[in-house]
């Protein structure tokens, strides 16, 4: 809400208060002032009259002027480039030494193409007036002052009504009443305990009206009209122009200006119909119309059932609350009008306005909510102005159909409730007086009281609302800081979140960087590299861009984007991970994804190593160990995926359910990022596994014996199978099997490999001798030979 301090000062005593003090008070009381802005800014201005206007000898657009600045300063020569400079024109002159506008441009005596210039003739924007508030004519030349402007007057900003300060107030959704100057004046009066004087209703002699009003829709609860005849459309008086100027509204003519002035001051949008053009005395409010409607802006809109219209049997006169029709709009020939003050359903206005892309000051007021209890007052003020400023000859009585209840809201409350809710100890009198400052009537009954709320406070419904009013006015600095005194609660994370946090911290400790990417991605990103679900994606109905229009089904595409960004910024070696909720049409779960690319630098440049499959499988294993998940709880098998290297990838399964993948991204998909390894798991599945509490394992008192072997076997037999078989045959005596070399090449037949491994034997009961180990060793060798065709390398 824009509020001109000059306009406010007409209704509330703000003497001896600086704009900053006013803004501060409003800000703490819920009406945050976002900007304090003078309407204009300049000094050393004076009103002058152009006595002579000659062409500059050296320029085709400059003029050399002789300007009369009155008796004190005499006649000055000024070079001016404005096309509208001419003899006899009264102008704003910035004298030498003046500072103009918010950039503080200083005016100096100068020579312009060898002609001396002693000042500058100004356009309004040059003295700081917002360009948006000026006409094209005002923007293209110097300001043309009226012929009665007094030459030599140095109070130019005051003369122009530009000695005003504008407050930009962020009026929140609960206080639409404050979107009017009168309500703000009352608010300031209550806050500063200053006197407020608003215009009063006057008795006006009226004729009987022959207008009729009929409401035939639930979307309108009140519709009032006043007929006014014999108007003269003309220029508005200066005070009205100035008042609107302060509010950033351009003056059109007296009738339109009065409508705008009433809306700005009371918050009630009016509509004025040219009765002769409307061609009927009968007004019907309906929401049954379907068809075209040409609004005041000259554009034609397609209306549908549900839109509120005001019509007669011949035409649609107005799109209720939004904009009037072109065909019965007030114009320079208008004589007789009907002034409408209505209460339309804001929800309905909002829908219509949104659908048509047609908004107005009026629709903004209805959407936010207006005070519906001041119709008679508003129309009375309007008629007073029409009589005073537009020579209205005949005023007819108001015609009104009203379905609203105008009963005042009554709230039952107690003083102790207010103090209890606020944590304060205000006295009964303090609370009572504070509410009364806001025109809330308080009827006392011991600790209890009844608050009768003024009709314009449509936001006050319950006792909690009253507590806010009290603290808003008495000041939040009166609240004393305490801590809740309540029964002790157990704080902290649940088990799953503890585990998730541990996983995260583990990955960071082993040198991975955590990243965070957007949930909303493009449909393309969702098409590939999704491993953990086959569900449909969730689409957003109203995305901002197609890049963020669907919910991602997996994290890997996002991580690849992070890799790409970093590679483009000279970060070649990347180890990143993300943990995030994934939501599809069927489910929602936490996913953990890791991407490794380039070299492992975690031991420094002197010990780098290219990332490979065993980094992702190793990270997986370390997490399983961290979560105490035994390796027999899951299976790791080769996996066929179009997105993964066929020979360097694996699926992780619980039974037959795929719960994760790891491996190299298929080279055809990683051309621009290079060899990249990923691990992608449904983290929830792992976190939700029930694991038993770990019990201590016995440590043998007897020595362990290690023997090394080299087996030759076909290349497609995995080391995992060999180890598994050895462990199975070795029963309790084989403590550990570790592979320390895999060799293919010279001395080994094509299609075969040599697997060097070390078996550790140990017993809990005795020191093992050769006679204990040898037979077991023979069994292992023969089983490996029988089942896998492996034989000892000679």
């Amino acid at each position, binding site marked *: 809400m824009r509020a001109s301090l000059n306009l406010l000062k007409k209704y509330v005593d703000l003497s001896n208060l600086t704009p900053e003090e006013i803004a501060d008070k409003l800000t*703490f009381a*819920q009406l*945050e002032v976002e900007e304090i802005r003078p309407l204009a800014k300049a000094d050393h201005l004076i009103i002058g009259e152009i006595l002579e206007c000659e062409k500059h000898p050296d320029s085709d657009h400059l003029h050399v002027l002789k300007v009369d600045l009155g008796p004190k300063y005499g006649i000055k020569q000024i070079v001016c480039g404005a096309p509208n400079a001419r003899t006899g024109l009264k102008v704003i002159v910035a004298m030498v030494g003046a500072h103009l506008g918010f950039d503080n441009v200083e005016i100096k005596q100068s020579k312009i193409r060898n002609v001396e210039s002693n000042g500058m003739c100004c356009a309004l924007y040059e003295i700081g007036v917002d360009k948006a508030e000026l006409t094209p004519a005002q923007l293209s030349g110097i300001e043309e002052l009226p012929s009665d402007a007094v030459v030599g007057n140095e109070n130019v900003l005051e003369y122009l009504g530009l000695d005003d300060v504008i407050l930009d107030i962020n009026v929140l*959704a*609960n206080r639409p009443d404050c979107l009017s100057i009168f309500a703000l004046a009352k608010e300031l009066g209550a806050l500063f305990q200053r006197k407020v004087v608003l215009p009063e209703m006057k008795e006006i002699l009226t004729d009987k009206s022959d207008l009729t009003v009929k409401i035939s829709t639930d979307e309108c609860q009140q519709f009032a009209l006043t007929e006014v005849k014999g108007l003269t459309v003309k220029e508005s008086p200066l005070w009205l122009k100035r008042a609107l100027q302060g509010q950033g509204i351009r003056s059109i003519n007296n009738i339109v200006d009065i409508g705008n002035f009433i809306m700005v001051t009371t918050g009630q949008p009016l509509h004025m119909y040219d009765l002769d053009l409307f061609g009927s005395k009968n007004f019907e409010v309906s929401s049954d119309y379907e068809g075209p409607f040409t609004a005041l802006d000259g554009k034609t809109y397609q209306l549908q059932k549900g839109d509120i219209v005001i019509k007669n049997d011949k035409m649609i006169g107005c799109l209720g609350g939004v904009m009037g029709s072109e065909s019965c709009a007030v114009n320079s020939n208008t004589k007789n009008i009907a002034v409408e003050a209505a209460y339309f359903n804001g929800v309905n206005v909002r829908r219509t306005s949104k659908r048509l892309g047609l908004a107005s000051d009026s629709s903004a007021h209805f*959407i*936010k*909510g207006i005070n519906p209890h001041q119709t008679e007052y508003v129309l009375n003020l309007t008629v007073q102005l029409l009589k005073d400023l537009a020579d209205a000859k005949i005023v007819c009585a108001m015609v009104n159909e009203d379905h609203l209840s105008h009963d005042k809201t009554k709230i039952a409350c107690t003083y102790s409730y207010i103090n*209890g809710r*606020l*944590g*304060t100890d205000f006295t009964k009198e303090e609370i009572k007086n504070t509410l009364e400052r806001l025109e809330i009537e308080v009827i006392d009954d011991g600790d209890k009281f009844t608050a009768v709320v003024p009709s314009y406070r449509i936001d006050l419904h*319950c*006792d*909690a609302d009253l*507590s*806010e009013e009290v*603290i*808003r006015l008495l000041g*939040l600095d009166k*609240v004393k*800081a*305490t*801590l*809740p005194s309540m029964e*002790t609660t157990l*704080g902290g*994370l*649940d088990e799953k979140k503890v585990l998730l*946090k541990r996983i*995260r*911290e583990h*990955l*960071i*400790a*082993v*040198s991975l*960087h*955590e*990243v*965070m990417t*957007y*949930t*909303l991605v493009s449909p393309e990103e969702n098409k590939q590299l999704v491993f953990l679900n086959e569900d449909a994606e969730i689409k*957003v*109905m*109203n*995305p*901002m861009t197609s890049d*963020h229009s669907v*919910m991602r089904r997996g994290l890997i595409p996002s991580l690849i984007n*992070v890799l790409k960004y*970093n590679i483009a910024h000279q970060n070649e070696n990347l180890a990143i991970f993300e943990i995030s909720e994934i*939501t599809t049409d069927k489910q929602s779960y936490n996913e953990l994804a890791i991407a490794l690319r380039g070299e492992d630098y*975690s*031991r*420094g*440049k*002197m*010990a780098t190593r290219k990332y490979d499959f065993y980094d992702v499988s190793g990270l997986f294993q370390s997490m399983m160990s961290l979560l105490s998940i035994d390796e027999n709880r899951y299976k790791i098998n080769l996996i066929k995926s179009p997105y993964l290297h066929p020979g360097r990838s694996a699926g992780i399964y619980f039974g037959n359910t795929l719960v994760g993948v790891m491996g190299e991204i298929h080279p055809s998909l990683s051309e621009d990022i290079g060899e990249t390894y990923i691990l992608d798991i449904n983290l929830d599945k792992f976190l939700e596994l029930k694991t038993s509490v770990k019990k201590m394992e016995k440590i043998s008192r007897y020595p362990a014996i290690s023997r090394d072997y080299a087996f030759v076997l076909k290349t497609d037999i995995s080391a995992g199978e060999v180890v598994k078989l050895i462990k199975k045959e070795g029963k309790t005596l084989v403590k550990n099997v570790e592979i320390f070399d895999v060799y293919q090449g010279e001395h080994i037949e094509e299609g075969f490999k040599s697997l060097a491994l070390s078996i550790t034997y140990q017993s809990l009961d005795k020191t093992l001798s050769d006679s204990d180990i040898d037979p077991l060793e023979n069994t292992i060798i023969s089983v490996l030979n029988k089942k896998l065709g492996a034989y000892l390398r000679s």
Partner: protein
Amino acid sequence: MKEKRILQIVSEAKQAIANADNLDKLNDIRNLYLSKKSELMSFMSHMKELSKDEKAAFGQLINTSKNDINSALEAKKEDLAKKALEEKLEKEKIDITLTPRNYLRGSKHLFTTIVDEISDIFTSMGYQIVEGPEKETDHFNFELLNVPKDHPARDMQDTFFIDDNNLLRSQTSPVQARVMLAKHGVGPIKIISPGKVYRRDDDATHSHQFGQIEGLVIDKNISLGDLLGTLELFAKKMFGEKRKIRMRSSYFPFTEPSVEVDISCFECGGKGCSLCKGTGWIEILGAGMVHPHVLEMCGFDTKVYQGFAFGIGIERTAMLKFGVDDIRRFYTNDLRFLKQFDKE
């Protein structure tokens, strides 16, 4: 005479030992002076020529001399071994200024850092951490929070809709309603709920995705003063012991009274600087007393229970605390940005 010679031998031997510079020479000296054929030992044969008294004295002299030479040999041997070790170690000298071998940590994302820090503060005060779904229903995101359909407050946060009833949550506040309903009208409740939220907004200070931490306390005697005290404690822990906080009246549909909370600027201490735009205060969060209508809709008796709620912006807190200039940095994941916070 013989006695004199013996003393002379001892002195000669000691001299030789002192001059020896390696173990071989020491061995030669041992052979020369202490072997059976050595001069000193040869005097043993002379013993039988002596009287009983003389024998004892002479024997003692030879023994002492032998021991003297032996200990001199041993001392020298130790000395040589020590020197040899010193020489060896001298050769093993390294350049201690070479780059140390790295044991690099990765880094926690700043978002997580802030969530962890704030969670730690509140869990230490007995708050439970609860999370809610990012895909929410209109019912929880708006209606139970006192924002019925077509309420003007809906325009305050432009929401991503999935269909008429489902949306991406625009705030973490729906978790409030979920927790209250799950409690079936019985307090106390003391939770915080961190998470991602989504709004149709994108610039240097707004991102269409960002994080919030919701706080909710419900019990029998909760007041606005309790909210102030709680947030004061939070601000001091998060931004330093000297911080003060203040409240300004505001409006949220689900709290009444509603407040915006500012903290005294931690950059300038309240004198006014560019961070606080000269005001000495920085807005950090929105809060208020839970609206009775919300409590009622979520099954709590407003005659018995009252509560407060607050919402903290995660990135905003991180931006203030760590001087991050653009919210989008949280989502571009430039390694040069991420690595700066590996100590967190």
